[in-house]
């Protein structure tokens, strides 16, 4: 639980935010696909100060056996944070926050993956946050989608995430830590499958009117599209390299 800012900050002044961005501008994003030699698929994302690495294994035999589904693959998503990745050291064991994030992010990806093609298997996704500053769950989810594609797992589309919200009365995309701690802060973790505009993740904290909520969804879909471009770029970059054009194994 973070403490709200008490000092008076002008969150948007002359169209510019505290870090100089426009209201709908997202922080710099760079994604690299195929960064872990052992994993079937992987991705590394830098999004603002967030640094997250994701590894995917599978589809492989579902273990323990009782989790196996005879009709589809099971997704296991594990979101974790390195002890040193937050201002106050975090115990490495997952807490309630990590358990919830893992659950909803895994579910967000389920809609995208053609799970029914791989009955009785599981797909394991591990996302580890190595450095953070607001928006790490959507960054992890965004990188996970790239890692799944890198693993060659067929999908309806890439899941693209972005946090949207409000600070100082302004609706903004991709909040940074200062904005998240605004006295009137609203933080909406959002993700969609860009091509079909299906919303697969939506978790909100903070008070909004119905009008603001609708505008936030609009901003979320627009931001997800921007993020989608970075994901596509990462995959194209990887397969441009002739070494990566054959079968992995």
């Amino acid at each position, binding site marked *: 639980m973070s403490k709200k800012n008490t000092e008076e900050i002008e969150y948007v002044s002359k169209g510019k935010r505290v870090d100089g961005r426009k209201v709908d501008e997202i922080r710099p994003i760079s994604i690299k696909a195929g960064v872990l030699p052992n994993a079937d698929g992987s991705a590394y994302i830098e999004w603002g100060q967030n640094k997250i690495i994701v590894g995917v294994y599978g589809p492989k035999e579902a273990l323990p056996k009782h989790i196996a589904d005879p009709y589809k693959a099971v997704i296991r998503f594990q979101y974790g944070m390195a002890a040193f990745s937050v201002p106050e050291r975090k115990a490495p064991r997952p807490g309630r926050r990590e358990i919830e994030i893992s659950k909803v992010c895994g579910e967000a990806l389920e809609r995208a993956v053609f799970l029914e093609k791989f009955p009785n298997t599981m797909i394991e996704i591990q996302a580890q946050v190595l450095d953070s500053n607001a928006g790490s769950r959507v960054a992890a989810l965004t990188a996970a989608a790239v890692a799944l594609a890198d693993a060659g797992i067929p999908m309806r589309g890439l899941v693209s995430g972005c946090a949207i919200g409000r600070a100082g009365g302004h609706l903004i995309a991709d909040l940074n830590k200062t904005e998240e701690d605004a006295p009137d802060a609203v933080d909406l973790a959002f993700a969609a499958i860009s091509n079909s505009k299906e919303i697969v993740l939506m978790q909100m904290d903070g*008070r909004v009117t119905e009008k603001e909520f609708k505008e936030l969804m609009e901003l979320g879909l627009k931001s997800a599209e921007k993020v989608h471009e970075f994901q596509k770029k990462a995959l194209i970059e990887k397969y441009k390299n002739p070494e990566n054009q054959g079968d992995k194994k």
Partner: protein
Amino acid sequence: MNEELLWTLRKNKIVSMLKENKRLDDRAFDEFRQAKIQLEFSKCAEGSARVLLGKTDVIVGVKLGLAEPYADSPTEGSISCNVELLSMADASFEAGPPRPEAVEISRVVDRGIRESHCIDLESLCLVEGEKVWSVFIDANVLNLDGNMYDAVSLGAIASLLTAKVPKFEDGKIVKEEFSGKLKILNKPIMTSFAKINDFVLVDPNLAEEKVLDARFHVSSSEDNMFNACQKADAGSFKQNEIEFCLENALKKAKDLRKLL
């Protein structure tokens, strides 16, 4: 017989009925079941409520305890919310440490209450930087007939509204004496929706919940502000479907608030 297969058959049935505008229990898509609240169920609790929603049966209790404030908020008390999915409540619930389902409901109910600012945290301060009240909201789900999110959330605000603050004297709690009622500033209400194929239903019953593709929970207060929301499970929502949920949530919350 394979449980999964049974639910696939049931889903086919439910969907074919939805196509004819019918739900299993004859409700309209936007119709909430009757909710009943029984107050002060547990005498040991500072406030408590048992909520029946259909056959979903939950009991919520509020306890106040002494705590040291967090260093960055020396004048504020704290809130903690926990939901126990008792294994007696449904065959799919298992005994043992909380599973992700229990963690999720605990956190979603917590956010609905916390973000509404219905509890004035400053009013929970006893000695700045030293002693504050910690408000513990604990819920037990006794029987599951769908939509435990709304039942637990309703029980939480109902018990908060009746909660008394223990007497605090000479650095200690005086047993069985109270200094007054807990100050509650607004009444957040959770409203939950299920998406089954392309149908969006309010207040899913157990069968609907077992076959749903996605859920949407949203908390709102009497000033028509939304406090928190959560989309969960493997399906997705379209923008217009969420808009339908938001409009309906405000209406249903208004009805439910009358029970408080």
